[in-house]
Every structure is written in structure tokens, then in C-alpha cells.
């Protein structure tokens, strides 16, 4: 056993942390949250130059073939800074879908563009009944000659408002769930950003007679769910990494505040009530981060994580909410404000709970995996 990161991984973490501290302080995070685009193009370009996007892709598609744990490190650091960018939607979700299910042509033409920071993508999976299940994907894709026609509404698609291309999950009669590569600006597509607690780029996408050539199917008709399932554990791990980073920052920020804030002539951190909350928070972080590392390692080693992945997301969902909620409480009034940064994390904890499955969903899936 060796539970240490490598020297290179420590260096990667340090460089990501330094870059984000310099490029995107919390003031900038708030400006980005309030902007229509929700991310900064210049930052995005620099991130690409630093190699963050190509990291995990195999060399033949312009990548560096790094292990997923390196991406996890990047996401953890992004989480600490509450950094808004289309990294998760583009590089993680769509990047993984293409890697797992794309044709050679698709991979060769799209992955290097993602790696170079030149292509933004969004996964349009969920629909109006807000189901995480395969049965929740019902938007029809009708075959018509050499193309398909998409009609319907997709909900909660991340970063669709800034994406160049979408990966759309739709149902082809007799084949099942199928993924389509669709130009985000194609005629018949209307994308609207919805106001959310995360102040992020969560979108509704309406498709009206949108034509997609047959060669733009990813992985073949009926292969959609299988591909999404392959993307799923890795994407869950990386989203959890972002959340665990947020937990860490919240614990640090709050401990720091509890040492400095004086009431009744002493630091509030000297009250036992506060100490017990903080102890629980640290416990929440330590259990989350260590389990994250373990599950990430398992995936890296190609092991089965059919139980662990659900345990991880459910645990991290609950701990991130708990830690940020106590964080606000310990900060008192300042914790509730826009000016102070605690609220950024409190809001994200709720927003991220919904990404790739809320707690109830993962409990249910875990019970399935436990053969109940």
C-alpha cells in the first residue's frame, strides 16, 4: 500500500492551485456567476495551454495519457476555488462519452479540439420528468433517409448556452437510447439558461425538427445508455472531487474564522458547541476525500465500482451539504452574504447534489448493487 500522491501529482496540484488563485479569485468567481456566459474565455485558453484538457486523453488524440487521478486533482483544486468553467461538461462528460463511444473519426476530429480549448460541449440527457434513469430518456429521434430528426425538450443541460456542440440522448424506435452529435446552433434549436441556486449554466434546450446526419450518431443506434454508463463512474468521481475540494475550503475557511471571531471576549472557536461542529465537518471531509481517492484508484486500476460509485456520490452529497451548512452557521451573519465567500459553497453543495444523481437516487442504486 502507498497512500501518497506522486511528486508529479503534488506539483500538478500546486500549479493548478496557483493558477486559479491568481486568475480567478472569489471576486472574479462572482462576476462570472453574474455574467451571461458564466466562464472566462481567456482563462479557458490558458487552461488549455497548461494542458489541463488534454491530460487524460490518449496520445493518439492529442492527449498526454495521464491517469484519471490527475484530472481528479485538477477538479479538487477547482472545487476549492468554486471555479466556474465548462470543464466538467466539455472535458469530463462529453470528452469521456466520445472516448468511450465515439468512432475513430469522431475522436480524431473532436478530442484534439477539446484538448486545445477550441471546442465547448454539453451533454443533453435529462428531460422534463427530471429522471436520472434510462427510462427517463424519451425524446424521439425519427429516422428519415440519411439523417434523424429530433423533436422535444432537454432539461438541465450544463453549459449548453456556450457549447459549440451537444451530445444529445434520444430514443430511436426499436433500437433504444442513442447519442447524437449535434451542432449547438443548428436550425430548430433554442437554448435558454435557467436561473438556478448554483448561478451556473443550467439550460433548457428545445429541439424542433432538428436534422442530424446518420454519421453523427455516437457509437451506433441503441448504444447510448451503455456509453453513458461507461462515462458515469469517472464523471461521478470527478464531480465528487470538485465537491470534496469545496468541503476542504469550507473547513479551512471556517476554522480560520472561528479562531479569529471574538464574541463574549473569546474566539467563538473556543465554545464547545462550535468545536463539535468543526470536528464533524473535518470528519465529513476526511471520510469523503479518502474514499474519493480509493474509488478513483479502483477505477484507474480497472476494478468494478458498481457499489462504491453510489456510496461515494451519496456520501459526498450529504457531507458537502452538511459542511457548508455548518460553515454558514459558524460564520453567523457574514456567512449568509454575497460579499463573504461562504455562500458560494453553500449554494454549490445543493447544485452539485443534482449532478449525476441526488442522494436518494444513489441510495436506491446502491441497494440494487447490494442485491436487495
Amino acid at each position, binding site marked *: 500500500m502507498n497512500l501518497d500522491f506522486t511528486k508529479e501529482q503534488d506539483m500538478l496540484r500546486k500549479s493548478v492551485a496557483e493558477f486559479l488563485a491568481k486568475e480567478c479569485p472569489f471576486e472574479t468567481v462572482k462576476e462570472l456567476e453574474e455574467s451571461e456566459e458564466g466562464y472566462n474565455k481567456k482563462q479557458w485558453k490558458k487552461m488549455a495551454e497548461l494542458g489541463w484538457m488534454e491530460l487524460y486523453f490518449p496520445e493518439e488524440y492529442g492527449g498526454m495519457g495521464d491517469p484519471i487521478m490527475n484530472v481528479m486533482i485538477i477538479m479538487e483544486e477547482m472545487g476549492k476555488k468554486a471555479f466556474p468553467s465548462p470543464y466538467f461538461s466539455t472535458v469530463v462528460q462529453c470528452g469521456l462519452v466520445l472516448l468511450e463511444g465515439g468512432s475513430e473519426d469522431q475522436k480524431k476530429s473532436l478530442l484534439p479540439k477539446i484538448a486545445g480549448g477550441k471546442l465547448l460541449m454539453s451533454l443533453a440527457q435529462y428531460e422534463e*420528468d427530471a429522471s436520472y434513469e434510462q427510462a*427517463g430518456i424519451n425524446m424521439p429521434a425519427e429516422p428519415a433517409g440519411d439523417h434523424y430528426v429530433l423533436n422535444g425538450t432537454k432539461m438541465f443541460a450544463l453549459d449548453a448556452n456556450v457549447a459549440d456542440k451537444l451530445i444529445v440522448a434520444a430514443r430511436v424506435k426499436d433500437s433504444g437510447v442513442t447519442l447524437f452529435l449535434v451542432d449547438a446552433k443548428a436550425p430548430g434549436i433554442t437554448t435558454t439558461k435557467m436561473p438556478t441556486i448554483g448561478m451556473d449554466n443550467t439550460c433548457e434546450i428545445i429541439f424542433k425538427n432538428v436534422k442530424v446526419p446518420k454519421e453523427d450518431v455516437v457509437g451506433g443506434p441503441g448504444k447510448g445508455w451503455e456509453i453513458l454508463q461507461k462515462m458515469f463512474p469517472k464523471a461521478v468521481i470527478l464531480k465528487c472531487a470538485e465537491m470534496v475540494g469545496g468541503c476542504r475550503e469550507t473547513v479551512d475557511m471556517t476554522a480560520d474564522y472561528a479562531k479569529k471571531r*471574538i464574541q463574549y471576549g473569546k474566539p467563538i472557536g473556543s465554545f464547545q458547541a462550535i468545536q463539535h461542529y468543526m470536528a464533524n465537518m473535518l470528519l465529513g471531509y476526511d471520510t469523503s476525500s479518502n474514499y474519493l481517492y480509493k474509488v478513483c484508484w479502483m477505477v484507474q486500476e480497472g476494478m468494478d465500482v458498481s457499489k462504491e460509485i453510489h456510496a461515494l456520490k451519496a456520501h459526498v452529497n450529504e457531507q458537502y451539504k452538511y459542511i457548508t451548512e455548518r460553515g454558514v*452557521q459558524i460564520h453567523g451573519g457574514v456567512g*449568509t*452574504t*454575497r460579499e463573504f465567500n*461562504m*455562500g458560494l459553497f453553500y449554494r454549490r453543495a445543493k447544485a452539485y447534489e*443534482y449532478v449525476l444523481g441526488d442522494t436518494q437516487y444513489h441510495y436506491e442504486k446502491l441497494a440494487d448493487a447490494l442485491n436487495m
Partner: protein
Amino acid sequence: MDFEFTKEQEALREEFDEFFRKEMKHAPKEWAEGGLEAMYHTDEGFAFHDQMKKKLGKKGWLSRAWPKEYGGQDAPLIEQLIFNEVHAFHRAPGVDNFGVGMFAPTLMVGGTEEQKKRLLPPIARGEVQYCQGWSEPDAGSDLANLSTQAVREGDYYIVNGQKTWTTGGHRADHMFLLARTDPNSTRSRGLSIFNVKMDLPGIEVRPILYMDKGHITNDVYFKDVKIHASELVGKENEGWELTRQTMNFERSGVAGFVEGKRTIAELIDYAKAHKRNGKKISEDPVTRQKIAKLFIGLEVGQTLAYRINWEQQKGGLIFAASAASESKVFGSELSQQVANVSTEVLGMYGQLENSKWAPMDGKAATHYQFCVAANIFAGSSEVQRNLIAWVGLGLPRTK
């Protein structure tokens, strides 16, 4: 023992209910997402509150429980509880808690005849809007640490300092201010209460934005503000005692439980009307249990509130003081559970702010963000638990 309301009380409830049913039809869309933000953030929301306040004033409902001599009707506290229940159920505005609930009782206990005659009627008529000038940057839970100075010079007090977290300071025309009149004093000695007009020269109000950018609270700065000595309420340097005495208003916390019941009723309607994974949400066993659990909390909480109201009427203020803390902490934490469960039952829709996509006008996301403040203001949950342990159980006080 008898938990039933009298016929007269039921008739009164019906009268309140009919009034609010009618009036709430005119609520502007800004009112829909609920909470303090609906009241203080937008002009439309505040105007709605202001008009309602005047209507309630005309009916005499703001001052029903006040003594007759100050324009009230000497109504028993149970009637106030009934009013609070109906008002909360309708999520109605119109009650300026700072004026009606806090400052008016302070005046009744400690004000001069002249002050009572001058200041109480406008509060009863709903013509004025108060804010509460207590907290300061270094005096939150530890209010007695406040440092805003009011120094006597001739017929005036000269006020310098900063108040913070002043809810509705940007909407109020008056503040009740707690300031230090004895510069050599520390802690709770040497404090005094003032009735302050917010348009006095030297007062500056600056917004503090909530985490969702809503404008509820403010910093209020005082620079050489001249307050006439006739605005001192109660004895000089004895403001702390007076502040603590003003307990004779209804403080059962019943409103929160009633509003919670309304919210879960709406949630149940939603769950019955919507399907997820081919099944009605209301058929999902986990959802059912979550909502059942909330209902139990709301039931027992409301019953505790009745007990507090009862003891308060009988003058059992010691029980009422500890139990009011119990109700506050139980109520705000339960309200937080209601918010949590709402965002969970709505699934991904639980993250949506008020918009065409958001069920229940986005109340779930708004409430999720605001509920945490209720565990902090008006005595944090920690401070309340300290009080319950000290006053309710007689456990040793820690410093």
C-alpha cells in the same frame, strides 16, 4: 384540559381568513417566491406590504392585543395567536414586527406618556415602518459588547457608530436604536434605547446583499447624528433591562409551524400531480416518509407553541422564556428541514429560482438559501440552546 377554540375564536379566525384570502389575490408576482426577500428586495413587494399594513391598521388588527389606553382592544393573547396563524398561512405581509412586535411593547413598558401618545398610534395605524438597530460588527450574539455612542449635549444626544444587519433599514422610516450613553460603561450597563428617524442628517444606509444577491439587510452608519433627548425611551443607561422586559407580545413561534404546513401541503399536491420514472412521486416510499416526518415536527411544534401562548397569558414568563427559545430553535431547524425536503422532492427542479420552469414559484430554492439565516438571527440556535440549558434546566452557566 381542553384544546378547543371557542365559537367566538373560530368566528374570528374565519374573519381573518376571509380578509387575507381576498387581499392575497392582489399579491404582485414579486411576492410569490416568499420570505423576507419578497418584502424588502423589490419596490413592488414592499409596496404590497405597506398597503396591507395600512389596511390592517384601519381594521385595528395590528394593535388588538394592546391595552385599551394605547388604542388597543385588550384582546387576549390567544387571539393574537389566531391572527398570527392565519396571517402565516396566507404568507401575508402587513405586520411590521419591529414596530408592532418589539418597539410598541417597549414603549408600553418604558415610554413616557408623551411618547406613548405620540409614537404608538402611528404604529397601530400602520403608518410607520421600523427597523431594529441592535447588532454591530463586534456585537452579534454578544450584543452587550456594542459600542455605538450616544453622548448627551444639551437637549440632544450625539450618536456615532455603526449598526449592521439592519433588516429593512433601506425601507424603514424609524429605527429603535440601542446605544451606549455612558462612555465609561462596559457590557450591558450604560445602554439606552432611542426612537430614531431614519432621515436625520448623518445617517447613512448601505446595502448588505444576501448570498443570492437579495437586499434585505443593511449597514447603518451614524456620524454626529443629533437625536433630541425626548426620543430617549426609558431611563438613561437602563436600556438593557428594558430591552429584556419587553416580553409581553406573542412569542410562541406559531407562525413558522403554520407556514410549514402550508408548504408541505403544496409539496404533496406537487408530488401527486407529477410522475418520475413512470410513477407518481407521491407513491415513492422515501418521499412519503420524509413528508410524514416533517408533518410530525410541525404538529408537535404547533402544540408546543400553544402551550407557550397559554403560559404567557397566565404570566408564566420563566417557562415561556425557555420554551420560547425551544420553539425558536425547533421551528427554525424544522423550517430548514422543510426547505431541504422540498428541494429533494422536486428533484432537479429543486435548484430553480423563480421562473417559468420552477414549481411552487421557486420557493424551494429561495427557502433553501434563506432558512440558514433563521438559525442565526434573533438569537442563534447555539445561543438559544444555551438559554434552554440555563433557564429551562438550571444547568451551570458558562462564561
